[in-house]
Protein backbone atom coordinates (compact mmCIF):
# COMPACT_ATOMS: atom_id res chain seq x y z
CA UNK A 1 0.00 0.00 0.00
CA UNK A 2 1.25 3.47 -0.90
CA UNK A 3 0.94 6.77 0.94
CA UNK A 4 -1.13 8.06 -1.96
CA UNK A 5 -3.81 5.40 -1.39
CA UNK A 6 -6.95 6.79 0.17
CA UNK A 7 -9.53 5.09 2.34
CA UNK A 8 -12.08 5.37 -0.45
CA UNK A 9 -9.84 3.01 -2.46
CA UNK A 10 -10.98 0.23 -0.17
CA UNK A 11 -14.47 0.15 -1.59
CA UNK A 12 -15.31 -2.53 -4.14
CA UNK A 13 -18.02 -1.82 -6.63
CA UNK A 14 -18.59 -5.42 -7.60
CA UNK A 15 -18.53 -8.75 -5.81
CA UNK A 16 -14.93 -9.89 -5.11
CA UNK A 17 -13.44 -12.69 -7.19
CA UNK A 18 -12.30 -14.55 -4.08
CA UNK A 19 -14.87 -16.31 -1.96
CA UNK A 20 -14.61 -15.71 1.76
CA UNK A 21 -13.17 -19.19 2.34
CA UNK A 22 -10.52 -18.66 -0.35
CA UNK A 23 -9.60 -15.31 1.18
CA UNK A 24 -9.35 -16.88 4.61
CA UNK A 25 -7.07 -19.65 3.30
CA UNK A 26 -4.79 -17.20 1.51
CA UNK A 27 -4.54 -14.90 4.51
CA UNK A 28 -3.85 -17.70 6.95
CA UNK A 29 -1.19 -19.13 4.66
CA UNK A 30 0.61 -15.80 4.52
CA UNK A 31 -0.81 -13.15 6.86
CA UNK A 32 1.77 -10.56 5.81
CA UNK A 33 0.96 -10.66 2.08
CA UNK A 34 -2.12 -8.46 2.60
CA UNK A 35 0.10 -5.44 3.36
CA UNK A 36 1.48 -5.62 -0.19
CA UNK A 37 -1.69 -6.65 -1.96
CA UNK A 38 -4.45 -4.05 -1.99
CA UNK A 39 -6.88 -6.38 -3.75
CA UNK A 40 -6.71 -8.79 -0.82
CA UNK A 41 -7.38 -5.94 1.56
CA UNK A 42 -10.32 -4.68 -0.48
CA UNK A 43 -11.75 -8.18 -0.44
CA UNK A 44 -11.33 -8.42 3.33
CA UNK A 45 -12.94 -5.02 3.77
CA UNK A 46 -15.83 -6.11 1.54
CA UNK A 47 -16.50 -9.13 3.76
CA UNK A 48 -16.10 -7.03 6.92
CA UNK A 49 -19.21 -5.17 5.80
CA UNK A 50 -21.22 -8.38 5.87
CA UNK A 51 -22.29 -8.93 9.48
CA UNK A 52 -23.01 -12.61 8.73
CA UNK A 53 -19.26 -13.09 8.16
CA UNK A 54 -18.21 -11.25 11.33
CA UNK A 55 -18.08 -14.30 13.60
CA UNK A 56 -15.70 -16.13 11.24
CA UNK A 57 -13.60 -13.02 10.56
CA UNK A 58 -13.21 -12.36 14.27
CA UNK A 59 -12.43 -15.98 15.07
CA UNK A 60 -9.87 -16.60 12.33
CA UNK A 61 -8.55 -13.27 11.07
CA UNK A 62 -8.85 -10.74 13.88
CA UNK A 63 -5.50 -11.36 15.59
CA UNK A 64 -3.35 -12.80 12.78
CA UNK A 65 -4.41 -10.24 10.17
CA UNK A 66 -6.47 -7.25 11.34
CA UNK A 67 -4.62 -6.53 14.59
CA UNK A 68 -1.30 -7.16 12.84
CA UNK A 69 -2.19 -4.43 10.35
CA UNK A 70 -3.32 -2.08 13.13
CA UNK A 71 0.00 -2.59 14.92
CA UNK A 72 2.16 -1.96 11.85
CA UNK A 73 4.80 0.55 12.84
CA UNK A 74 6.42 1.18 9.46
CA UNK A 75 3.53 2.44 7.39
CA UNK A 76 0.71 4.57 8.82
CA UNK A 77 -1.46 3.75 5.85
CA UNK A 78 -1.39 0.02 6.62
CA UNK A 79 -2.27 0.76 10.22
CA UNK A 80 -5.07 3.04 9.09
CA UNK A 81 -6.49 0.45 6.70
CA UNK A 82 -6.41 -2.13 9.51
CA UNK A 83 -8.33 0.29 11.72
CA UNK A 84 -10.96 0.71 9.03
CA UNK A 85 -11.53 -3.04 9.01
CA UNK A 86 -11.54 -3.11 12.82
CA UNK A 87 -14.11 -0.32 13.01
CA UNK A 88 -16.21 -1.98 10.36
CA UNK A 89 -16.50 -5.05 12.59
CA UNK A 90 -17.58 -2.87 15.51
CA UNK A 91 -20.45 -1.27 13.59
CA UNK A 92 -22.45 -4.44 14.16
CA UNK A 93 -23.57 -4.49 17.78
CA UNK A 94 -23.46 -8.27 18.04
CA UNK A 95 -19.76 -8.36 17.15
CA UNK A 96 -18.61 -6.18 20.06
CA UNK A 97 -18.55 -8.96 22.66
CA UNK A 98 -16.88 -11.32 20.18
CA UNK A 99 -14.06 -8.84 19.52
CA UNK A 100 -13.54 -8.32 23.24
CA UNK A 101 -13.71 -12.04 23.97
CA UNK A 102 -11.62 -13.43 21.13
CA UNK A 103 -8.25 -12.70 22.71
CA UNK A 104 -9.13 -13.83 26.18
CA UNK A 105 -6.82 -16.43 27.62
CA UNK A 106 -9.62 -18.76 28.66
CA UNK A 107 -10.87 -18.90 25.05
CA UNK A 108 -7.42 -19.48 23.61
CA UNK A 109 -6.98 -22.51 25.80
CA UNK A 110 -9.66 -24.21 23.74
CA UNK A 111 -7.53 -23.88 20.63
CA UNK A 112 -5.43 -26.78 19.44
CA UNK A 113 -2.13 -24.88 19.32
CA UNK A 114 -2.53 -23.75 22.88
CA UNK A 115 -3.32 -27.27 24.00
CA UNK A 116 -0.17 -28.48 22.25
CA UNK A 117 1.95 -25.88 24.06
CA UNK A 118 0.48 -26.87 27.39
CA UNK A 119 1.04 -30.57 26.65
CA UNK A 120 4.62 -29.85 25.66
CA UNK A 121 5.24 -28.11 28.96
CA UNK A 122 3.62 -30.98 30.80
CA UNK A 123 5.98 -33.62 29.48
CA UNK A 124 9.16 -31.68 28.88
CA UNK A 125 9.58 -29.91 32.14
CA UNK A 126 11.78 -31.49 34.75
CA UNK A 127 12.40 -30.67 38.37
CA UNK A 128 15.30 -28.49 39.48
CA UNK A 129 17.47 -31.52 40.22
CA UNK A 130 16.97 -32.81 36.66
CA UNK A 131 14.75 -35.76 37.56
CA UNK A 132 11.40 -36.20 35.75
CA UNK A 133 8.25 -35.17 37.64
CA UNK A 134 5.89 -37.82 39.00
CA UNK A 135 2.18 -37.80 38.04
CA UNK A 136 1.10 -35.43 40.82
CA UNK A 137 3.95 -33.07 40.07
CA UNK A 138 3.03 -33.18 36.38
CA UNK A 139 -0.49 -32.04 37.26
CA UNK A 140 0.86 -29.23 39.43
CA UNK A 141 3.24 -28.16 36.66
CA UNK A 142 0.39 -28.20 34.17
CA UNK A 143 -1.76 -25.94 36.37
CA UNK A 144 1.14 -23.57 36.92
CA UNK A 145 1.88 -23.44 33.19
CA UNK A 146 -1.73 -22.69 32.35
CA UNK A 147 -1.77 -19.89 34.91
CA UNK A 148 1.44 -18.40 33.51
CA UNK A 149 0.19 -18.64 29.94
CA UNK A 150 -3.09 -16.97 30.90
CA UNK A 151 -1.24 -14.12 32.58
CA UNK A 152 1.07 -13.70 29.62
CA UNK A 153 -1.77 -13.65 27.10
CA UNK A 154 -3.93 -11.33 29.17
CA UNK A 155 -1.03 -8.89 29.42
CA UNK A 156 0.01 -8.94 25.78
CA UNK A 157 -3.13 -9.69 23.82
CA UNK A 158 -5.64 -7.02 24.68
CA UNK A 159 -7.03 -4.84 21.89
CA UNK A 160 -7.66 -1.97 24.32
CA UNK A 161 -4.04 -1.89 25.49
CA UNK A 162 -2.87 -2.04 21.88
CA UNK A 163 -5.12 0.87 20.83
CA UNK A 164 -4.07 2.96 23.83
CA UNK A 165 -0.38 2.34 23.09
CA UNK A 166 -0.94 3.27 19.45
CA UNK A 167 -2.78 6.50 20.30
CA UNK A 168 -0.11 7.54 22.79
CA UNK A 169 2.63 6.82 20.29
CA UNK A 170 1.22 8.49 17.19
CA UNK A 171 1.58 12.00 15.84
CA UNK A 172 -0.74 11.32 12.93
CA UNK A 173 -4.18 12.88 13.25
CA UNK A 174 -5.45 10.22 10.82
CA UNK A 175 -4.45 7.48 13.22
CA UNK A 176 -6.07 9.30 16.13
Amino acid at each position, binding site marked *: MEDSDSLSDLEMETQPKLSFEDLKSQLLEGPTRIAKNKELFKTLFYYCKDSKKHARIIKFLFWPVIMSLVQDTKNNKISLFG*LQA*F*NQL*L*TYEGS*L*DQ*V*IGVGKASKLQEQTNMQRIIKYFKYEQVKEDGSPPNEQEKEELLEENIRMLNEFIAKRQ*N*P*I*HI*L*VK*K*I*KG*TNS*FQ*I*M
Partner: protein
Amino acid sequence: MSKAIRNLSQAEEVIHTLQDKGDLIDIILEKFLAADPFSQENLLETVSFACKFEKYRLAFASNEAFIKILLSQVQSISLKVTYFTIKICRQLSKDKPNIEKLQGDNLRLTEKLIIAFKWLE
Protein backbone atom coordinates in the same frame (compact mmCIF):
# COMPACT_ATOMS: atom_id res chain seq x y z
CA MET B 1 -8.36 4.61 16.71
CA SER B 2 -10.41 6.90 18.91
CA LYS B 3 -13.45 5.61 17.01
CA ALA B 4 -12.53 2.00 17.83
CA ILE B 5 -12.04 2.91 21.48
CA ARG B 6 -15.35 4.76 21.51
CA ASN B 7 -17.14 1.75 20.00
CA LEU B 8 -15.49 -0.77 22.30
CA SER B 9 -16.23 1.41 25.33
CA GLN B 10 -19.88 0.54 25.09
CA ALA B 11 -18.86 -2.62 26.94
CA GLU B 12 -18.45 -2.05 30.67
CA GLU B 13 -15.29 -4.17 30.99
CA VAL B 14 -13.55 -2.00 28.40
CA ILE B 15 -14.24 1.08 30.51
CA HIS B 16 -12.67 -0.64 33.50
CA THR B 17 -9.63 -1.63 31.39
CA LEU B 18 -9.21 1.95 30.21
CA GLN B 19 -9.52 3.36 33.72
CA ASP B 20 -7.43 0.70 35.43
CA LYS B 21 -4.15 2.55 34.93
CA GLY B 22 -5.60 5.95 34.05
CA ASP B 23 -5.06 5.47 30.30
CA LEU B 24 -8.10 7.52 29.28
CA ILE B 25 -7.05 10.54 31.36
CA ASP B 26 -3.48 10.17 30.02
CA ILE B 27 -4.75 10.24 26.43
CA ILE B 28 -6.85 13.35 27.12
CA LEU B 29 -3.89 15.11 28.76
CA GLU B 30 -1.34 14.09 26.13
CA LYS B 31 -3.26 14.00 22.88
CA PHE B 32 -6.63 15.70 23.08
CA LEU B 33 -5.73 19.29 22.26
CA ALA B 34 -3.73 18.31 19.16
CA ALA B 35 -6.39 15.90 17.88
CA ASP B 36 -8.87 16.61 15.08
CA PRO B 37 -12.47 17.44 16.11
CA PHE B 38 -13.76 14.01 15.08
CA SER B 39 -11.25 12.24 17.34
CA GLN B 40 -12.07 14.73 20.11
CA GLU B 41 -15.75 13.79 19.83
CA ASN B 42 -14.90 10.09 20.13
CA LEU B 43 -12.64 10.65 23.12
CA LEU B 44 -15.18 12.78 24.96
CA GLU B 45 -17.94 10.28 24.25
CA THR B 46 -15.69 7.60 25.77
CA VAL B 47 -15.22 9.81 28.84
CA SER B 48 -18.98 10.18 28.97
CA PHE B 49 -19.39 6.37 29.00
CA ALA B 50 -16.91 6.17 31.89
CA CYS B 51 -18.84 8.87 33.77
CA LYS B 52 -21.61 6.34 34.38
CA PHE B 53 -19.46 5.13 37.28
CA GLU B 54 -19.10 7.26 40.41
CA LYS B 55 -15.47 6.27 41.09
CA TYR B 56 -14.45 7.40 37.61
CA ARG B 57 -16.43 10.65 37.90
CA LEU B 58 -14.42 11.35 41.03
CA ALA B 59 -11.15 10.50 39.26
CA PHE B 60 -11.95 12.91 36.40
CA ALA B 61 -13.16 15.71 38.67
CA SER B 62 -10.09 15.38 40.91
CA ASN B 63 -7.69 15.87 38.01
CA GLU B 64 -7.28 19.63 37.59
CA ALA B 65 -5.39 19.34 34.28
CA PHE B 66 -8.22 17.21 32.88
CA ILE B 67 -10.88 19.70 34.05
CA LYS B 68 -8.98 22.60 32.47
CA ILE B 69 -8.89 20.81 29.12
CA LEU B 70 -12.54 19.80 29.39
CA LEU B 71 -13.77 23.31 30.22
CA SER B 72 -11.70 24.80 27.40
CA GLN B 73 -13.88 22.91 24.94
CA VAL B 74 -17.12 24.83 25.51
CA GLN B 75 -16.46 26.88 22.37
CA SER B 76 -15.25 24.11 20.12
CA ILE B 77 -15.34 24.30 16.34
CA SER B 78 -17.32 21.06 16.59
CA LEU B 79 -20.77 21.45 18.16
CA LYS B 80 -20.62 17.78 19.17
CA VAL B 81 -17.48 18.48 21.21
CA THR B 82 -19.31 21.34 22.93
CA TYR B 83 -22.29 19.05 23.50
CA PHE B 84 -20.19 16.29 25.07
CA THR B 85 -18.34 18.88 27.20
CA ILE B 86 -21.65 20.03 28.68
CA LYS B 87 -22.86 16.46 29.06
CA ILE B 88 -19.72 15.45 30.97
CA CYS B 89 -20.02 18.53 33.22
CA ARG B 90 -23.59 17.48 33.99
CA GLN B 91 -22.49 13.88 34.69
CA LEU B 92 -19.63 14.98 36.95
CA SER B 93 -22.01 17.29 38.83
CA LYS B 94 -24.13 14.36 39.94
CA ASP B 95 -21.82 14.11 42.93
CA LYS B 96 -21.77 17.24 45.10
CA PRO B 97 -18.05 17.17 45.98
CA ASN B 98 -17.28 17.23 42.25
CA ILE B 99 -19.21 20.47 41.72
CA GLU B 100 -16.79 22.34 43.99
CA LYS B 101 -13.85 20.97 42.03
CA LEU B 102 -15.43 22.00 38.74
CA GLN B 103 -16.28 25.50 39.97
CA GLY B 104 -12.80 26.18 41.32
CA ASP B 105 -12.22 29.55 42.98
CA ASN B 106 -13.94 31.84 40.52
CA LEU B 107 -17.19 30.07 39.61
CA ARG B 108 -15.53 28.94 36.40
CA LEU B 109 -18.12 26.23 35.71
CA THR B 110 -20.95 28.79 35.77
CA GLU B 111 -18.96 31.13 33.55
CA LYS B 112 -18.11 28.36 31.08
CA LEU B 113 -21.68 27.13 30.91
CA ILE B 114 -22.93 30.65 30.14
CA ILE B 115 -20.35 30.84 27.32
CA ALA B 116 -21.39 27.39 26.07
CA PHE B 117 -25.08 28.24 25.95
CA LYS B 118 -24.37 31.47 24.08
CA TRP B 119 -22.13 29.51 21.70
CA LEU B 120 -24.93 27.07 20.96
CA GLU B 121 -27.59 29.76 20.32
